[in-house]
């Protein structure tokens, strides 16, 4: 929901319903999600590099040599830092959902109660 009348509407980010536990070892589920997010971002990056190389090649540009000579100005430094912070937002999505669940008091008991209630003829 928006915080004020002028604020841009934001879509919902987390699904309602207590997230199940898979590993009995604390933190392993979170690590699993983080590893997969990292793998996803690695693929995103690799796809972009692939796209750049293909675009360059179509236009007769040797990207490999150009990249080695590229200086990083202030705008480049800021863009890269913003991208890294965005990556951390994705990486820690579960920790943020857990905090939301605690705030909304959404529990595994409620989830189980919904299953029972909805199965009831």
């Amino acid at each position: 929901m928006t915080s004020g009348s002028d604020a841009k509407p934001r879509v919902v980010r987390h699904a309602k319903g207590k997230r199940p536990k898979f590993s009995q070892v604390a933190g392993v589920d979170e690590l699993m999600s983080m590893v997969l997010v990292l793998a996803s971002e690695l693929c995103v990056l690799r796809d972009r590099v692939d796209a750049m190389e293909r675009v360059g090649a179509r236009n007769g540009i040797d990207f490999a040599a150009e990249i080695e000579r590229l200086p990083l100005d202030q705008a480049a430094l800021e863009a890269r830092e913003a991208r890294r912070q965005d990556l951390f937002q994705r990486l820690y999505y579960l920790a943020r959902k857990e905090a939301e669940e605690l705030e909304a008091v959404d529990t595994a008991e409620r989830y189980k109660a919904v299953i029972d209630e909805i199965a009831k003829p």
Partner: protein
Amino acid sequence: MLNTFQQRAHAMLPAATHDESSRQEFAKSLKQFVQEALLPGLQPVFARRAAAKFADEHGRAPADRREIRSAMLSDPYFQTYASTNRVSQELMWASVTDSIDRELPQLIDRAKSLSAAATANLKIPEKFAVPRYVSALDIHCMPGGYTTEVAPGDVSVAALYDRGAYLYCIGYCGPNNDDFGVSVCNYVKRNLKGFKPQRILDLGCTVGHSTLPYKERFPDAEVWGIDVGAPLVRYAHARAAALGAEVHFAQMNAEATEFESGSFDLIVSHILLHETSAKAMPRIMHECHRLLAPGGYMIHADLPPFDRMDAFTQFILDNETWYNNEPFWGAMRDMDQIQLCVDAGFARDNIYFSTAPMAILEAAAHSAAGYTDAAAQAVADREFAAGEFAPGGGWEVLVAQKSLNGHE
């Protein structure tokens, strides 16, 4: 066989940046990998490790899906499989949410202008009671569920469903994500000889993926799609207009619609019933019987009952109940669906389960992106493994015909 299936673009689909497209492809590829490479391992893990451990502790083999589940829960391979599958679902929705969040005001405007130019009806009442089985949990972990509106005229959850459902189906449902509808249409044309429906109702139509094929294949018929989600029917109406289909949509509850008795001769639903409840399902069957004209058909494409499969398969399929916010997934499969139809007024002799073959080869025939003949053939021919998306061969359909005199 590499899966390079691509969804067909239309005016309502949110546009993705290069990075967003890559995240979406990653989620789809991960789902493909989980099905092809992790899922088959559950069988030997159960047979050689989890079942043996259970037998050591109990002096006997696990007797049913509940005991199989209890034996598997502590197994590290199962944990890796189940948690990877869950994360793939979360990343899939997240990959689409970014595009929608960026484009939301424009998406709402596009829906408004497309709908305004359409001749088909769009009915959304001022007040509507969303059933609890839709509002209690965000089904299949889709953030916002089917009904959340974050702005006036919102379509965000519908746009999320349109793109996300395509990725969930890993493209097996064709470039328009309409394989359920196309398959049931084909089933009607091939198996119900001489039956030419004039008025068709699609229950729980969401964004109209499976609704539009009916208008394409029965162009003279009046086709309606109804759903409990206002954003869904709003989006469905705009999407149909964008695709040039005159299909009517309304926000209604399939348990009690506002249509007149006997006013439809074909009523269908696609993957709807398992998202309802034990209270709602009998009401929906009754409503279908009320709405059908004598001789009319009701066809529900959904999950086959548990008594048609072994306990291990039941266990794998029931994972959706526990790990994907699908509270009715397992309980629905335990219900006697034939008896529900009988109780609703259909004659037992006129009720049966059948199979509607997948239509993915038609997508290849239309040269949709990524749908090569070989890749489509591989999906159509493959052996079904429990837990994969889509059975090999076809969808399970529950068919019932209302008797010609209207009474049983």
